[in-house]
C-alpha cells in the first residue's frame, strides 16, 4: 500500500485554512449523519442489531481460516476461479494475467476500496490496459487523478462547479454545473465503455462461506453492469470480508446501508454465485475471485488490533469525526482516511510511516459511538500510541518532558517546589492580557495564568 502519511501534519496545517472547503466537508458529512440518524430510528432495536453484527464479525474473524477454506470450496464448486494474493503486487498480477490471456484492452471497474489499496488501475494502465471507474464519484476522482476522499462517497470534496470544470477539461464537453446534466455526461461516456469492455472488476462487501457467493451493494447500477455485461468478471476482496452464512447477510445489509448513506437498503444488492449457467442469457462466462491478504494476517495475529478487521467500510466514523471534518480525506495520505484509517493504515504500512495518524484524534470517541460493528476505534488509537512509544518512535524531547513531568507528579515535595517555582517565573512575565506565553498553544489561543494559590494551599487555609 502506498501511503504518504508522513506529510499529514504539514498538509493538515494548510488544509484547515481553507474555510470554504471546511464548510463543504462539514455540510456533506453532516448531511450523511442526519440521514443515518433518521433511518436508524426505524430499527426496533438498533443497539441490539449493532451488537449482533459485532458478534458475527468477531466470530468470523476468529474462525477466518476455516471460513476462507469453506468459501474457496463452495465458490469453486459454483464454477468461480479462486485466487489467493498475499501482497498487492500478487493481486495485481493475477488480474494482469487474466487480462493478458483474454487480450483485454478495456476494463470497467465498480467501486472497490481494495482495488484502491493495491493501486490496481495504475498497474493495469502500466500494462496498456485502459481501466475505467464507473461509480460516479470514483469516475470523477479518476478523471482528477486523485485518491478517493472518503470511503463511501469518494468525491464529496468537489463542488458541482469543480466537477463541471473537470468534465469540460477532460471530456471536452461544454461546461455545466447542473447535477442532472453532469450525470448524463458521465452516463454517456460510461455506457459505451460498459458495452466495449472485455473484463469487469468489482470489489465485494461480503463473501458468504456457506454458499460461495460474493455480495455487492451499490446505488448506481454500475456494479450490476460491471458484473453482467463483460464476458469476464473479477471480484477482489480482502480476506476479512467473509461471513459464515447467507442468513447473516440480512443483519449486515440492514446496518451497512443505514450507516453509510442513511438508506434502509441500497438500490442494488447483487449476489454473484458464479458464471452464466447453461440456458441463462445474462452474466459473465468466467468469474474470478481474488482473495487479498496484504498484511491482514499480521493484523489478525495482533489480539488487540484485530478488531479493525471487523470494519465493513461504511464511512460513518469519517462523517462524525471532527478532525476529518476540518482536514478532509486526502490529508491522511492513505486510501483509508479518518478514524478507522488512522487505526488501519499504520498496521498496513508501518507505524513509523504513519506515526502521526494514531495521534490525529482528540479521542472524543464519536467514531466508536457510531460504528455499526462497535469497533472501539479511539481506544485502538490509544493502543497504537502505546506501541509507538514502545518502539521509540516518539521524539526525545517529548520523552524527556513526560519523564520529568512524571517525576514531579510522583513526588509531592517536588510537585510543591515546581508549583512555587512556576509562580516565581510567571511573576517575571509581562502582564499583557494575563496570557501565559505557552509555545504553540498561544499562537491561536490565550493560555490562562497559574492561580496565585493552588487548591491544596487554599484547602489548608479553609481547614485552619
Amino acid at each position, binding site marked *: 500500500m502506498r501511503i504518504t502519511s508522513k506529510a499529514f501534519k504539514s498538509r493538515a496545517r494548510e488544509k484547515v485554512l481553507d474555510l470554504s472547503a471546511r464548510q463543504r466537508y462539514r455540510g456533506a458529512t453532516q448531511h450523511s449523519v442526519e440521514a443515518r440518524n433518521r433511518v436508524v430510528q426505524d430499527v426496533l432495536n438498533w443497539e441490539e442489531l449493532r451488537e449482533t453484527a459485532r458478534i458475527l464479525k468477531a466470530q468470523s474473524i476468529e474462525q477466518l481460516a476455516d471460513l476462507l477454506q469453506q468459501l474457496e470450496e463452495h465458490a469453486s464448486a459454483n464454477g468461480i476461479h479462486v485466487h489467493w494474493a498475499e501482497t498487492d503486487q500478487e493481486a495485481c498480477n493475477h488480474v494482469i494475467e487474466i487480462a493478458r490471456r483474454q487480450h483485454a484492452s478495456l476494463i470497467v471497474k465498480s467501486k472497490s476500496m481494495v482495488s484502491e489499496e493495491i493501486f490496481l488501475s495504475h498497474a493495469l494502465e502500466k500494462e496498456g490496459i485502459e481501466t475505467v471507474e464507473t461509480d460516479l464519484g470514483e469516475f470523477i476522482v479518476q478523471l482528477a487523478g486523485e485518491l478517493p476522499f472518503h470511503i463511501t462517497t469518494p468525491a464529496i470534496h468537489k463542488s458541482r462547479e469543480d466537477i463541471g470544470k473537470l468534465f469540460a477539461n477532460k471530456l471536452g464537453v461544454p461546461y455545466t454545473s447542473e447535477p442532472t446534466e453532469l450525470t448524463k455526461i458521465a452516463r454517456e461516456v460510461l455506457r459505451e465503455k460498459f458495452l466495449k469492455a472485455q473484463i469487469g472488476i468489482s470489489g465485494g462487501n461480503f463473501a458468504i462461506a456457506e454458499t460461495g457467493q460474493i455480495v455487492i451493494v451499490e446505488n448506481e447500477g454500475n456494479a450490476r453492469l460491471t458484473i453482467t455485461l463483460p464476458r469476464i468478471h473479477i471480484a477482489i476482496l480482502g480476506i476479512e470480508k467473509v461471513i459464515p452464512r447467507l442468513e447473516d447477510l440480512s443483519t449486515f445489509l440492514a446496518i451497512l446501508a443505514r450507516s453509510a448513506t442513511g438508506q434502509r437498503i441500497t438500490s442494488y444488492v447483487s449476489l454473484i454465485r458464479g458464471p452464466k449457467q447453461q440456458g441463462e442469457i445474462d452474466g459473465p462466462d468466467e468469474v474470478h475471485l481474488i482473495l487479498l491478504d496484504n498484511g491482514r494476517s499480521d493484523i489478525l495475529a495482533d489480539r488487540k488490533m484485530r478488531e479493525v478487521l471487523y470494519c465493513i467500510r461504511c464511512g460513518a466514523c469519517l462523517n462524525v469525526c471532527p478532525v476529518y471534518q476540518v482536514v478532509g480525506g486526502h490529508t491522511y495520505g492513505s486510501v483509508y482516511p479518518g478514524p478507522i484509517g488512522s487505526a488501519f493504515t499504520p498496521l498496513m504500512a508501518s507505524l513509523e510511516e504513519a506515526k502521526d495518524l494514531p495521534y490525529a484524534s*482528540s479521542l472524543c470517541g464519536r467514531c466508536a459511538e457510531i460504528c455499526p460493528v462497535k469497533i472501539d476505534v479511539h481506544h485502538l488509537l490509544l493502543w497504537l500510541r502505546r*506501541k509507538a512509544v514502545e518502539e521509540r518512535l516518539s521524539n526525545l524531547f517529548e520523552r524527556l518532558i*513526560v519523564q520529568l513531568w512524571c517525576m514531579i507528579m510522583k513526588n509531592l515535595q517536588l510537585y510543591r517546589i515546581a508549583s512555587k517555582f512556576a509562580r516565581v517565573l510567571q511573576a517575571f512575565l509581562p502582564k499583557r492580557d494575563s496570557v501565559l506565553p505557552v509555545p504553540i498553544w498561544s499562537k491561536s489561543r490565550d493560555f490562562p495564568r497559574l492561580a496565585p494559590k493552588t487548591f491544596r494551599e487554599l484547602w489548608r487555609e479553609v481547614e485552619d
Partner: protein
Amino acid sequence: MRVSLFIPCLVDQFYPQVGLSTLRLFRKLGLEVVYPSDQTCCGQPAFNSGYHEEARKLAVRFLRIFSDAEYIVTPSGSCASMVRVFYQDLSIPADLQQSLDRVKEIIFELAEFLVDILKVTDVGAAFSARVTYHDSCHLLRELKVKDPPRALIRNVKGIDFIEMPESSTCCGFGGAFSIKFPEISTAMLEEKVRSIQRSGAEYVVASDAGCLMHIAGLLLRSRIPIKTLHLAELLAVNLR
C-alpha cells in the same frame, strides 16, 4: 457519608475555585469532605500520549492514596474516566487489583455523583443568566453521562438554559492533541465557538477544566464576550 475529593492537577494549578466550589457544595449538602493531600495527577496525560509505564506509576500512586475512601468525587469527567475506564489497560500490579476494582466502583464525576448517588437535582443554587452546556467527550462517551449535568443546570433558580447546536462535538482540546496539532485543534475550536455563539448564551458551562480552558482560550483571544463556567462553580453560586 464521607467524600474524598480528587482535584485534578489542572484545577489545582489554574482553577482552584472549581475545587473550592465543589467543597462548598458538598458541605452545604451535609457531607463529610476530606482531601487526601498526597494526591497529584491520575496519569492521564502520559497515558493519552502512549506512555503506559509512566502512567502506571501514577495510577499505582493514585490507588494507594484513594483505596480506603468511601466515595471519590472529582469535578472532571476526564479524570474520572481515566480511573474507571482506562486504569484496567495499564497492567496494574496484582496486589493492587482489588484496590482498582473497588476504586472503579466508588469514583464519580461531580454531576453523576449528585444525581445518581445522592439523588439531588436541585442543589439550591441561584443564577440569573442565559447558559448553554458543552458535553465533555470523556464524560459523555466514556462515562455515558448526558442528562445529570443538564438536570442540575435546569434546576438552578433563575437560569435560562439553552442547548447549543452540536453540544456533543469535541472542542478540539484533547490534551496533548492541542499542542501536537495546534492548527487542527484550533479549527475544531472555531467550530465549537460558532455553536456556542449560535446558542445566544452569555455563559458556556462544562464539566471539565480542560475543555473550558480551551474554549476560553479562543473566546478571550477573539474578544467574544461569552464567559466560561465550570459546573461546580455554577452550582455553588448564591447557594440558598
